[in-house]
């Protein structure tokens, strides 16, 4: 009986088991049987037992005790047993097992066996599970077989060589000469293997790539033969002659022609011919056409050919077969970087694919749509993307949300649109957005000062409707806290006015505080917002007081701490409450306080009670008063306006360390440096009030000539990203003999921290003559280390 019958018996028995437990029992008995069989030694039944074991292994039960049996069977002289042994080796052994080394010798012997089928068994096993050591030992054997006369063996040896090269790349040189000669084979199987081998060699080593470029004409010949040949029934698949080989050759041509003009020229005709002659009604033709398109896009082809390729892709996009649409979108993804305009033409179709039922197609369409967003089409694309977000499958949501945010950040036409878009995303998919969204959005809102009223109204309404989306609730709470007074005023030209009373607002915040759905971070936001409102509303301060004191005994440590501190603000430090809870300054995007934060609004909290920017000399008393209060509060009496006066913005956000701030308060006197001296006019520069991005420069002009300088004007120019604000000069007449000076202050804001240069043009009249001169100041002293600025007169 052949092994199959015994196997069939066992399979029948296993299948008749009605429960999992019964099946396990049967299999255990069978395995015990098999083990006993193996111990018995050779009696002609071993291969049957191994076959049964392999079936059991496929079902998922442990089968490692069969490994040594495989080794023994491989060494047997009978073909049946060898075959079963090799199959077992492929399924049970791998390079990590020691048993695999034991079969190396058997494989070596079998590679020189007289029967080609035994040789093929050995080759197959080596290619499937050959370890690096085995490959090294047997590489020369394989190379010999590559030159054998039998095409069956040659074909298998070729693929085995590919496996060897993958395992042991150093052996690649061994196979190069034979690979070259294999290209002249007629047998398609061998040819196919040869092309795979050459592809592998070229991918690994650029020198080999150069060598094989000479083979391009030969490959082109073979392809031409395939494309124009008459119907041959053996290799025909749906009307195309051996599409598998065609696809392989096209892929190899792609690698050989990449970045190489001579090779690309040789291929142009062929590619045009294939592209126009191939019938794409069936999958086989489409496969060849698709590979041709990829090759055309990747080599240095002429532009006519490229246009042809993109058109073919466009045709694929409209095809009814979903597979082809999926494939064409994959390839469009690859070329959207280089041929952006060509792909833009198909934007409509791609956006339609977003509505396809198939998730794979949707995913591809989403990636492609995000890549196609540009400043021109942002509004229409965003509409489509937002519709998609509300209907898309769950696994694509977070990708869509982050893609929308990126696109909005890069191309938003207006701040209001940007804020609207983000709000829309938060209401639809708030649970899937990334963590940085909340601080980013808050920063965006705070910079759009004209939209504060509109934003806070919108957020309030969204909050009232639904408090489950944490990101949205956090942002809404922050805004209500900051701009609560605008909310209560009720009027806002952009949306219909709705009267919101203080009770409503406090009600909303209390709901957030008490709801189960709010995370601890959200509660923190809500509590602080409630506190901030105490300075912005008039009637319900007691209510706020009571809320705050309730949370003073909250179990959550963070909330309790905050509540206790706010309580203290109410009781002991009531005179400072207004100052501490003032509007926050515009947050600078690059400042450490902004980027350090995680979403748990904890960073936000210290910010509000942070020491407000301290002007020189104003600190002493208030600071010492509050220094003992938990190191967090250090207010001043000077209220802060949101208008970014460059001197005051940055200090609030730049340091989290109180000591640092105290240290930086004494302004170190900055020496003035002469930047221009000519014809009696001297210009001195003094840089003070420096922070990371802002510098206040004072130019002092003095006159040492005999007569007064009149009509003195200064003009200054700075690099593009730097903002310049010139204050009014103290005058435009400089008295003679150094008796007086004209000073002019220039405020520089350097957000991108480019190297600062300034060109100053002076023009004045002296003794009736008009003078004009320009001086360029190349470097400015850095904050604490007052280096001399470098000057170059022009």
């Amino acid at each position, binding site marked *: *009986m052949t092994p199959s019958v015994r196997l*069939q018996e066992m399979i029948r028995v296993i299948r008749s088991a009605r429960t999992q437990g019964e099946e396990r029992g049967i299999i255990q008995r069978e395995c015990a049987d098999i083990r006993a069989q193996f111990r018995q030694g050779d009696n002609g039944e071993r291969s049957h037992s191994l076959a049964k074991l392999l079936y059991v292994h496929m079902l*998922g039960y442990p089968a490692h005790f069969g490994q040594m049996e495989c080794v023994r069977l491989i060494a047997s002289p009978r073909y049946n047993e060898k075959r079963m042994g090799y199959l077992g080796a492929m399924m049970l052994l791998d390079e990590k097992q020691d048993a695999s080394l034991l079969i190396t010798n058997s494989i070596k012997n079998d590679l020189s066996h007289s*029967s080609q089928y035994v040789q093929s068994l050995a080759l197959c096993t080596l290619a*499937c599970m050959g370890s690096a050591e085995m490959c090294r030992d047997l590489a020369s054997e394989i190379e010999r077989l590559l030159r054998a006369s039998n095409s069956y063996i040659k074909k298998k040896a070729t693929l085995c060589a590919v496996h060897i090269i993958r395992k042991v790349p150093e052996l690649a040189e061994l196979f190069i000469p034979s690979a070259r000669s294999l290209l002249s084979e007629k047998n398609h*199987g061998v040819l196919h293997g040869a092309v795979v081998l050459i592809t592998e060699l070229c991918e690994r080593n650029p020198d080999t790539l150069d060598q094989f470029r000479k083979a391009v004409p030969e490959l082109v010949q073979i392809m031409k033969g395939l494309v124009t040949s008459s119907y041959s029934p053996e290799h025909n698949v749906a009307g195309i002659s051996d599409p598998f080989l065609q*696809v392989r050759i096209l892929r190899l041509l792609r690698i050989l022609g990449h970045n190489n003009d001579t090779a690309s020229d040789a291929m142009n005709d062929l590619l045009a011919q294939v592209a126009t002659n191939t019938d794409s009604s069936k999958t086989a033709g489409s496969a060849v056409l698709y590979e041709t398109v990829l090759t055309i896009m990747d080599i240095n082809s002429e532009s006519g050919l490229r246009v042809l390729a993109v058109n073919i892709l466009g045709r694929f996009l409209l095809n009814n077969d979903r597979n082809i649409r999926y494939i064409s979108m994959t390839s469009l993804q690859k070329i959207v970087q280089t041929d952006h305009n060509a792909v833009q033409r198909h934007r409509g179709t791609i956006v339609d694919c977003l509505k396809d039922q198939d998730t794979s197609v949707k995913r591809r369409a989403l990636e492609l749509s995000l890549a196609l967003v540009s400043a021109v089409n942002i509004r229409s694309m965003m509409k489509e993307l937002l519709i998609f977000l509300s209907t898309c499958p769950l696994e694509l949501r977070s990708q869509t949300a982050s893609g929308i945010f990126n696109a909005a950040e890069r191309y938003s036409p207006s701040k209001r649109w940007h804020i609207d878009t983000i709000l829309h995303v938060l209401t639809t998919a708030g649970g899937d957005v990334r963590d940085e969204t909340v601080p980013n959005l808050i920063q965006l809102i705070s910079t759009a000062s004209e939209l504060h009223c509109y934003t806070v109204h919108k957020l309030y309404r969204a909050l009232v409707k639904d408090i489950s989306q944490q990101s949205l609730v956090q942002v809404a709470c922050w805004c209500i806290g900051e701009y609560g007074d605008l909310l209560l005023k009720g009027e806002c030209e952009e949306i219909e006015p709705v009267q919101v009373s203080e009770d409503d607002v406090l009600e909303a915040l209390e709901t957030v505080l008490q709801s189960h759905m709010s995370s601890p971070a959200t509660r923190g936001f809500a509590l602080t917002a409630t506190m901030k409102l105490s300075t912005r509303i008039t009637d319900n301060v007691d209510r706020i007081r009571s809320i705050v004191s309730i949370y003073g005994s909250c179990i959550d440590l963070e909330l309790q701490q905050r509540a206790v501190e706010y309580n203290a603000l109410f009781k002991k430090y009531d005179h400072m409450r207004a100052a501490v809870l003032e509007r926050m300054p515009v947050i600078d995007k690059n400042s450490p306080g902004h980027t350090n934060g995680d979403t748990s609004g904890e960073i936000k909290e210290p910010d509000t009670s942070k020491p407000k920017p301290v002007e020189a000399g104003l600190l002493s008393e208030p600071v010492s008063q509050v220094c003992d209060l938990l190191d967090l509060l250090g207010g001043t009496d000077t209220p802060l306006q949101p208008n970014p006066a460059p001197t005051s913005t940055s200090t609030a956000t730049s340091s989290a360390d109180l000591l640092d701030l105290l240290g930086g308060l004494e302004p170190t006197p900055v020496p003035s440096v002469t930047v221009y001296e000519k014809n009696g006019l001297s210009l001195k520069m003094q840089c003070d009030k420096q922070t990371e991005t802002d510098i206040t420069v004072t130019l002092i002009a003095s006159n040492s000539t005999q007569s007064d300088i009149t009509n003195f004007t200064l003009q200054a120019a700075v690099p593009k990203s730097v903002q310049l604000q010139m204050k009014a000069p103290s005058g435009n007449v400089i008295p003679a003999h150094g008796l007086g000076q004209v000073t002019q202050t220039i405020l520089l804001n350097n957000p991108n921290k480019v190297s600062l240069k300034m060109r100053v043009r002076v023009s004045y009249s002296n003794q009736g003559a008009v003078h004009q001169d320009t001086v360029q100041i190349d470097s400015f002293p850095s904050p604490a280390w007052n280096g001399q600025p470098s000057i170059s007169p022009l």
Partner: protein
Amino acid sequence: MIKAILIFNNHGKPRLSKFYEHYTEDTEQQIIRETFHLVSKRDENVCNFLEGGLLIGGSENKLIYRHYATLYFVFCVDSSESELGILDLIQVFVETLDKCFENVCELDLIFHMDKVHNILAEMVMGGMVLETNMSEIITQVEAQTKMEKSEAGIAGAPARAVSAVKNMNLPEMPKNINIGDISIKVPNLPSFK
């Protein structure tokens, strides 16, 4: 490179599993289960390509599958293989099975697992496509089967007798030959060859 070839039925029971990269036995079973989950959720008229599951390499690997009656044929490949080409390869594989088993059905795959492995070994070797010409594959498979039978010895006598009867040109053929507990389905043969 082809990472794995899996055949399982509509309930997820594996009928053939061949891995061309090494995984532990547990991982192999998990991969089969995970692939089944991914593939069975698919509708009938969506495309045949899927991103690979996490265990088998995530989004760098694709699952290309075809659903025939009660069986899913799934090939897990990486980006170096042409997706449409693999679809065609699955078709060629199934047609070859059909020729070798004569109107193949799931039961054939269940009871002749080793033969299916041998056929597959003629088509895909070490994760690479070896031969796509159906007649070539079938010739080789039949030659090897003959070799096996010739070695079978005395124990193979009943099987040899049956195949001898099969090859006889009789005008009338019984539908079923029952010898002991072997039941062999007799195929329809043309009367003159």
